[in-house]
């Protein structure tokens, strides 16, 4: 009875304080001023702020404007304040911003240990340790009117427009050699076909050229509609080339592409170190991949591969305390695959899909003073399970397989760039390839 009465009291209090807290002030903003602007065009800031001069706004709406600015990659932080305007009851909205530098860099690398067992191979399994450098980019940016121009090593040129034809839509397009990427590509992984008792890692050695275009249309609030497309070309290689000439893929050129459309809702508190909020995304994608094997290698596998799939992402973050975060991330896709080629083992059409669940604990050290500057740091521990399935049960014994993952990482960010170092363990039974 005591417990019930306490709970009833609680409900009453939640209602009482909620009602008391709903009184909101509204302010007439006669002008908007930016301070601290060095590189960024004010036209971009005004377009992203989405607040007009000569209108009434609540504190929540003003804070939402600041939130939109803080999410821009070239804004390090901002402060907003209301100051007296030209007549009583009118205010100047003063926004002080601190920008990131024109020169920017991003390095993300993982030391990965992969433990694999192959259902098609008569051996107990194997372990593989490798360094995965996913992203390494160096770049420089310029701003003019509502546009941003980026040049990224080794030569990728990007153009962004932050208010296309006054619609609030964002255009992002680019072309050129892609930023450095030395990585084992998971979509290839290890070949299940042993040669001389050994297995080969199939890797995408390089992507020579990439072109992309992306439109993001605001649907209101934090809802967006995105339409994206990219296409590029590269070259396939395999490791252990000397011992397994039959699996050598040198001189095998590939071309790839993707077109997708998706809806997203993003309401998180920080663009990099999310501590709370929700991200939802759902859409459809069309992927293709063409192999152009060297004459001496033909026939080897599928030569043309196309996939149509639906996908969804859900990410939810909770702020356990001002410096601790817990997150749940779900992602899934399911689609139809078609391929033309000479691999008799695989039917021309099959279904495949993936589903993943990750749990994340993060410790955030936001805005900490170090080496005379304020920087953000974050330590993360993540565990996850990813399940892959297809209807190729008559073709591969492991048409369904799971992968367990554990990862710890450290990320540092300042107004120059971001550094992320990770240690990762993966355990999987992978008999399906590709």
């Amino acid at each position, binding site marked *: 009875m005591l417990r019930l009465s306490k709970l009833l009291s609680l409900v009453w209090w939640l209602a009482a304080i*909620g009602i008391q807290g709903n009184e909101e002030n509204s302010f007439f903003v006669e002008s908007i001023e930016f301070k601290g602007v060095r590189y960024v065009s004010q036209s971009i800031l005004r377009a992203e702020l989405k607040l007009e001069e000569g209108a009434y706004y609540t504190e929540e709406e003003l804070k939402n404007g600041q939130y939109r600015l803080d999410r821009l990659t070239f804004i390090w932080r901002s402060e907003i304040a209301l100051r007296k305007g030209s007549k009583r009851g009118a205010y100047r909205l003063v926004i002080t911003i601190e920008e990131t530098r024109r020169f920017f860099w991003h390095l993300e690398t993982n030391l990965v240990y992969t433990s694999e067992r192959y259902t098609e191979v008569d051996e107990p399994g194997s372990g593989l340790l490798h360094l995965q450098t996913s992203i390494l980019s160096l770049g420089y940016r310029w701003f003019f009117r509502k546009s941003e121009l980026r040049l990224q090593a080794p030569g990728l040129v990007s153009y962004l427009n932050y208010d296309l034809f006054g619609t609030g839509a964002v255009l992002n397009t680019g072309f050129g050699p892609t930023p450095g990427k030395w990585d084992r590509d998971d979509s290839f992984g290890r070949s299940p076909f042993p040669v001389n008792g050994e297995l080969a890692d199939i890797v995408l050695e390089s992507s020579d050229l990439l072109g992309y275009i992306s439109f993001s249309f605001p649907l209101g609030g934090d809802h967006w509609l995105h339409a994206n497309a990219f296409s590029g070309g590269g070259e396939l290689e395999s490791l252990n080339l000397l011992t397994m000439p039959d699996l050598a893929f040198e001189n095998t050129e590939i071309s790839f592409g993707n077109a997708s459309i998706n809806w997203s809702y993003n309401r998180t508190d920080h663009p990099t170190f999310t501590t709370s909020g929700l991200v939802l995304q759902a859409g459809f994608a069309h992927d293709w991949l063409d192999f152009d094997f060297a004459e001496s290698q033909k026939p080897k596998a599928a030569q043309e591969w196309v996939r149509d799939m639906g996908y969804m992402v859900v990410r939810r973050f909770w702020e356990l305390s001002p410096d601790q975060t817990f997150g749940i991330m779900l992602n899934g896709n399911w689609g139809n695959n078609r391929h033309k080629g000479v691999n008799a083992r695989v039917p021309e059409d099959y279904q495949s899909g993936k589903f993943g669940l990750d749990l994340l604990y993060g410790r955030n050290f936001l805005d900490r003073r170090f080496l005379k500057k304020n920087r953000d740091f974050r330590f993360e521990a993540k565990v996850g399970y990813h399940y892959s399935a297809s209807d190729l049960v008559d073709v591969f014994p492991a048409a369904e397989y799971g992968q367990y993952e554990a990862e710890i990482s450290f990320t540092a960010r300042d107004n120059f760039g971001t550094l992320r170092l990770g240690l990762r363990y993966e355990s999987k039974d992978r008999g399906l390839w590709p």
Partner: protein
Amino acid sequence: MMMLLLHTFLAPLILSTGNPKFGLSNAGDLAIGFPAELFEEKKIETQLQSGLTTTMLVTVVGQNGKKVRGGARVDIRFEPWDEIYHISIFHYNGDKEILMLQSQKVLMDLLTGRRIRVASSQPAARLLVTLQVLPFSKTEQVDTQKWFSKTLASNQQGSGYMLDLIFAASIKRKTSRKFQWTVDWEP
């Protein structure tokens, strides 16, 4: 890199200033006064002068087995036209006080002068005091409900924990600053 890692993991998470002081209100409740130097910090001073609402959320928890749990919330907004401070105080028992203060000095007197009631009358105890300074948000006013749920449900671990999770889920903005002290209270 090693220095960077050491700095990150060894540096204190919560910055402290001088200790808050406790006293008894006219009604005999435990009341808190914050250290004055806390409001001299540039970030807090800027936030208080921004013309937008700043929320100060304080919680008090007994240490060494003492069953003391309480808290209060203070909303502060500086009005540039009148150069006055609009204050709303939610005391631990739900009493709400609305004030208009004419100057920063009067505001400091309020915040440092042991007028914010955080718990009922208490015997001597060691208290853990946590102060969070938050930017205003309508949707995040459940912060108050968060500490209140903690206070009310302190003897009901199960429901208190669940409510805490629910309330934590609705905080979408980072705390601007957090301070924590351990203070010995002598009646």
